[in-house]
Every structure is written in C-alpha cells, then in structure tokens.
C-alpha cells in the first residue's frame, strides 16, 4: 500500500468518513447490532462445522479431532444408485414451484383493483388463513380428501362416472398435489409484499392515465407492473437462492414406497441418512453440495438481473 499513497489516502479518508458516520448515527447502528450478532452467532460461527463433510465424524473426537477423509462422502453420494433420481426430482419439483412464481403477483394486482370494502377484506383474510396451518394438518387434510375410497374428491369423481384415483400413491400425481396444495396455502400470504409495493404507486399517475383514456388493463400493464418490478426481481432472486430447498417436512409426510419414484428428494434423503441413521458426515456432504448449487444459482441470476434490469441484490 505504501507504493500507492493516493489509494491509501482514499482508503483512510473513506474509513474516516465511515467512523464519522457511525458516531453521528450510532443509534441506528445499535438497531443493526442484534441482526449482526444473530447472523454471526447462528449462521457464520456454525459454519466451521461444515468441515465434517470432509471428515469421518466421531462424537468422542469432536468436530476438529475427527480424521479427514477428503471427498469420500461426496463420491459415495455421486455413486449412489439414487443420485440421479434425487437430483431429477429435486430440480423438477423446484422448477414446478418456480413456474408458479407469477401467481401471487397476478393475485395481488387483482386484489389491488378491488375497492376497499368488505369483499376485499374477506378475500384477503380467507386467502391468508391457510398460511397459518401447520404442514402436518395440511397433509392430514390431503390424505383425508384424496383417499381412494372415503375421500371427497374421489366421491365426486365416481359420482360423475369416473373411476377413483389413488392420488397419494401414484408418482404421476405427487408433484401436482404437492405444488398446488402449497400454492393454495401460500398464495394469499405471498401477495402481502406486492400489495405493499402497489400502495406506494402515486395515484396521480393513475388519474393522469385515466384522463388520457387508458383502460384498466393498460394502467395495470404500464403503471402498476413497472412500479412493482424491482420488488418482483428481488423476490425472484431470493426465491432462486432457495431453489433446491424444498419444504421437506411436507414431502416426507406425503412420501410412501409407491410414489418414491417422484417424491424422493435430496432433503428427505439427508434427513433419513443424517438424522435417522446418524451418518452426520455423509449428510453434511450432501447438504453442502446442495448449498453450493443454491449459491451458484443465486450469483448467476443476480448477475443476469443486474445486467438486464438494474435491479439486483448487490
């Protein structure tokens, strides 16, 4: 740094400015402190445990004391008979969920067009409600409704002259049931951020557009959507960041030997080998593999978004 005094000075002056800034607004930084502590303690410090993915973890030796085995656990996972099935199922399920990403946006735009009245309030409350139900209850409802003999859905099908379908044990149906029941549960909740963004749209714009003779659809397309586009992009990138992280409890609860063909995903595999069979190192290796994919996707999508739309996470 001594070789480049100009840069050193600029560094120093930047640091000085930072210090001044902190002194001036210290109250704001105190607000920030809990979040920083939380992430350091619960998310950064535990990362040193990731090393067990490259070790043979022995409880008595501790994390640092266990012997190194290099990439053994990774190659065991890649060589596993179920490797491709797990990857395929995880990706398809994730993609399926991702395709439905616009649904809450459309729903939010529709809600936004409603006049503030009891109907709007009711529709919001009704669509938020399922969000608060636990996964176990949701799966219990699915099992009850979709039962081949006693389920209401099959009653309707048979009374219309069809033959009953065993939804829960057929691999073809698993993805649809999983994704659409998930949509039913989260649709209303997912609109909240968009509605907040929509409420920030300047009403003058709408008035001006009305005077210019713009139809409702045109106003949505040319005022509302551009207004919430940054929100959409950021949420989309965040979604991609958890691309491979499917709500595994629900998959696990819906899984059985007959639909395993499509319902066996990386997370349920990690749960079975890691927690139930106690193979921590192996499970850590798979988990790490998963995270690396997520991180890579996040960086790529963020890069694309920055280049094309000027909206991005960083």
């Amino acid at each position, binding site marked *: 740094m001594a070789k480049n005094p100009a840069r050193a000075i600029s560094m120093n002056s930047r640091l000085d400015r930072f210090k001044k800034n902190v002194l001036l607004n210290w109250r704001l930084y105190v607000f920030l402190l809990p979040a920083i502590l939380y992430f350091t303690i619960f998310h950064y410090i535990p990362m040193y445990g990731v090393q067990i993915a490259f070790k043979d973890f022995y*409880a*008595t030796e501790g994390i640092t004391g266990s012997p190194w085995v290099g990439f053994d656990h990774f190659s065991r996972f890649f060589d596993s008979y179920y490797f491709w099935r797990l990857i395929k199922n995880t990706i398809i399920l994730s993609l399926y969920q991702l395709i439905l990403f616009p649904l809450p946006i459309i729903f939010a735009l529709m809600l936004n067009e409603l006049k503030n009245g009891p109907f709007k309030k009711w529709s919001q409350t009704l669509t938020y409600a399922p969000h608060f139900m636990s996964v176990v209850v949701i799966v219990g409802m699915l099992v009850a409704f979709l039962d081949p003999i006693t389920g209401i859905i099959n009653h309707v099908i048979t009374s219309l002259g069809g033959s009953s379908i065993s939804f829960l044990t057929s691999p073809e149906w698993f993805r649809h049931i999983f994704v659409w029941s998930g949509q039913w549960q989260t649709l209303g909740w997912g609109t909240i951020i968009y509605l907040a963004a929509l409420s920030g749209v300047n009403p003058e714009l709408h008035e001006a557009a009305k005077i210019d003779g713009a139809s409702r659809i045109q106003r949505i397309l040319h005022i509302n959507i551009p207004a919430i586009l940054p929100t959409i992009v950021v949420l989309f990138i965040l979604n991609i960041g958890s691309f491979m992280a499917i709500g595994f409890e629900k998959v696990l609860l819906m899984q*059985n030997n007959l639909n395993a063909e499509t319902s066996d995903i990386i997370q349920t595999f990690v749960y079975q080998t890691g927690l139930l069979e106690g193979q921590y190192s192996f499970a850590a290796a798979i988990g790490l593999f998963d995270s690396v994919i997520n991180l890579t996707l996040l960086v790529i999508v963020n890069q694309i978004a920055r280049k094309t739309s000027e909206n991005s996470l960083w």
Partner: protein
Amino acid sequence: MKLKKLFIVLMLLVLILAACSNNNSSSDAAEEEDLDNLTDSGLPIVEEPIELDIFAGKAPATADDWNDVLIWNEYEEMTNINVNWDMVPHEGLSEKRNLALASGDLPDAFHSALIPVPDIFKYGQQGTFIPLNDLIEEHAPNLKSILEEYPEVEKAITFPDGNIYSFPLIYDPEFSALRISEGPWIREDWLEALNMDVPETTDEFYEYLKAVKEGNPSGDESIEEIPFGAQSINGLLTYLKGSFGIGNKGKGHRFIDLDPDGETVRFYPTTENYKEMIEYVHKLYDEGLIEENIFSISPEQFYANAGEGVYGSTYNHSPAELFPGEHRDSFTGGLTLEGPHGDKAFTGISFPSSTTGFVITSQNENPAATARWMDYFYSDEGAELFFMGIEGETFEKTEDGEYEYVEEIRDNPDGLTLDQAVAQYLTWPGGQYPGILMEDYFKGAEGTESSKEAAEKLEPDFIEEVWPSFTYTEEENNTMTSVGADIEKYVTEMTDQFISGQTPLSEWDTYVETLENMGLEQYMEIQQDAYERYLSN
C-alpha cells in the same frame, strides 16, 4: 488496513470458539469408581445414595414421566440409587438420541432408547458406550447365569470385536405368542356365515377373501367388506413367506435367509419363490381383496376402519386387545398356509433376544453400580417387580399361584384399558425395555388368552432356527449403510410397486439385473462373512 485487521481478529475469534467447543469432548474418561460404596450383593446396591441420569425413550403407551411412577420410586428405595429420567417421546427419538450422542454431552445410560444394532457397535468402538463383558462377569450374576443357560443369546449380543455393549431384552424362548407378536387373524363369524373353514392353503385363503368380497358375510348392506386390511403390506408378506419357501430364518432378516443347500446365505428377493409370492399378492390386490390404500394408510385410519368391522382378515396384534368396536372379539387366529409347491412354515418369529436395551456410557462414574441396578431385572423378583409391581398394591396371587393385577387395573373404574391402567404404576407398556420377559409375569397384548391360543395354532409350523441380527465390522458397516441401504430400499419400493401393479411383473428381469448392478455381490459377501462369524462366535 484496519478492515483487514478487523477481519483477522474475527477469524481468530472463530478459531478460538471452535477450539473451545472441542474441549469438553476430550475429557470423557470417567473417574475411577468408588467400589467400596457397593454392597456385597443383593439390595440395596450402594451404601451411600448415588444419582444416575438416564435417557429413556417414551413410547406412546407408557407414562409421561418415569420420575413419578410407582415402580421407579420403589426401586430407588430398594437400591439407594436415584435415577433422573430424561424422557424422550418416540416421535423425535432417533433425532434426539443421535444429537445427544454426537454432542458428547452424554447421560449415564440409555434405557429403552431403540438404538439400532450398528449404532451400538459404532459408538462402542468409538468408546462412547463401554464394553460390558467384565461388568457382567463381576456385577451381573443374574444376566450371567441366563447367558450361560442360553449360549445362543450370548452369541447374538456379542459384537465382532468380542465385546458386549448392551444389556439385552430376552424373551422366554418358550413364550411363542411373544416371539410372533403379530399374526394372522380371520373373522370367525364370517367363516360361519360363508360356511367355510379357517384357510389352510394359499388357495383356500384366496377363496375366503373372494367370498368375503362377494358374499356380503356381514349381512349388512351398508358395510363394504374389505377382505384383508392391515397397517402395511409387510404383515401379509411375513405371513406368506413360509408358504413360498423363503424367509426361513425369521422375521429379523427381511432380505436374506439360508439357501436350501444349507451352507450359504441366500438373497431371497431375487428368487423365483419371491416372484411367485409377489404374483399371488398382486392377484389379491388387483382383484380388490386387499385394502386399496394399504400403502398409504395411517394407523388411526386403520383402527377407525377396524372399529367399523369391515376387515375380513388382518395381520396384527390380537384384535381382541387392540381393535375398537364391537367386532374385536369376532377374530380367530389364522393357520399357517400351505403354498402351491407344498411349502408350509411360519416364519414370522423373532430371535428370543434383542440388543437394543440398555447401554452404559463412558461418562458414567458408577458403571458397576449401574450394572447391578440393571441386573436385578434379569432375576425372578426383578421381572416380577418390573411387570407386576408390588404385591398388594398392583397385583395379587390367585389361589392356584397365578399372578393377577388388582381389580382396579384389570377392570378400571375410569374405563382405561389394561395398558393405560398399568402405565400409571409400571413402565413396561410400550415395550423395547431391557430385561427378561417371562410368561408368568407378562400380561401385555401378547400375554392374553386370545394371543396365546392364536400362537398355539401356528406353533407346529414354526421354522426351526431363527437368526439374530448380524453384527458387522466398521468397514462392512460402511458398505451396508451405503450400497446395502440402497439395495434394501430398492427391494422394498419395487415389491410395493409389483404388488400394486404400478410396475408390471414383466419387468422382473430388469429388477434382478438392477439389483446386481447395484452391488448385490458385495452385499452378499458381507452377509456371508457375518453369518460365518455368527456361527463361530
């Protein structure tokens, strides 16, 4: 510059934290036990009271908190050892147990914790669980004499390194109802209504199921009879294996048995016999003779259906004890079926001991006292205390010397079932405890008259020898948990798919080929080695 320094300081902090968290695991070795505190023999066990922290699995049927249960308070006074029970419900048991084992913060012992056999060996080798051979020799006279009487039990609980790591659960080998535990049951009144006898061959069984479906034996138009229903398809397979000449070494081994040549271990899910059995079950399923959602049914739903009296047959514990509703007493035990090639054997028997009882950890400061504490339950008085409780309070002896729970438990005024009433005083309901189970003292579902009668019917066809779970070396275990787990998972999935018809049986050759490509040969080499080690143990 300063930012860089800050970064370095942060990194150092992380490293220090990492080092700190590692410290507690290196000081595992317990202090030398004060053996002078032990009494010479019998009760109490120690002069000065001591405390033990024990991790216990809580089955749904047992009391919520063992610290408040009659038996353990009584036993504390008898022994001078106070146990602090840490109860962990079965739903989260494997997770909690594994986390406790991985964290290094160990209790003094694990009781009823369903620890899988490979784990016992793994943690035994790592030094987390201590070897018990010397402790049993010196401080467990009751267990020692049982092991001398039944050398096959000692063989079964000894691991490849020659050590015993857990106090087993031993069944009285003569107590067949318990060794079957679950069995076939047929609706007796429907047999009468259909004018049929209890099926004795696979063909007759098919005829019966068919008749139930078509003949409306309940005489009630509103009831849609389900010829066979169970909590999973596995029970039916266990029932039928003996009729197709496979599974000849008991239900502890779901994939291997002894080849008819008498020497080698056989992987039976690829045999023609297995294929024939699958074909038979597929036929039943296809014709609607098996509950349609048997592959996804929940226990609650199964028992709800059972309460409505729709099942014509099942594979379960005694319905008289477990089914709700008025039809529970209408079932009679089924017979062993003779298969299409004359095979006839009942294979659904377990080995008379299991390894998953009680282990002592390296952090226990009183291993000898703990061993004595446990050993009492292998004696007659101990089994009496454990299963019957205290004379006058929970049980009484009848005139002909039989044991019987007191009126309040047998016929509870609050309408509790036997298990529920017992659970207020004793902790055996729910199972999986260490100790010895003897017919005289055991009054659970398998000890009732209906279960014993049903077991007697099957007994003449019992397979001769039952293998215990095999134990594997660490290296073998690595293969068993990777290649082995994949193979077993594949067989289980494909079996269900063949039965349901999701995969047609014409795919059978592909199935066999896939298994071979998955490393079946390697899997079988390990099983063969484990079998030979068991023989020479």
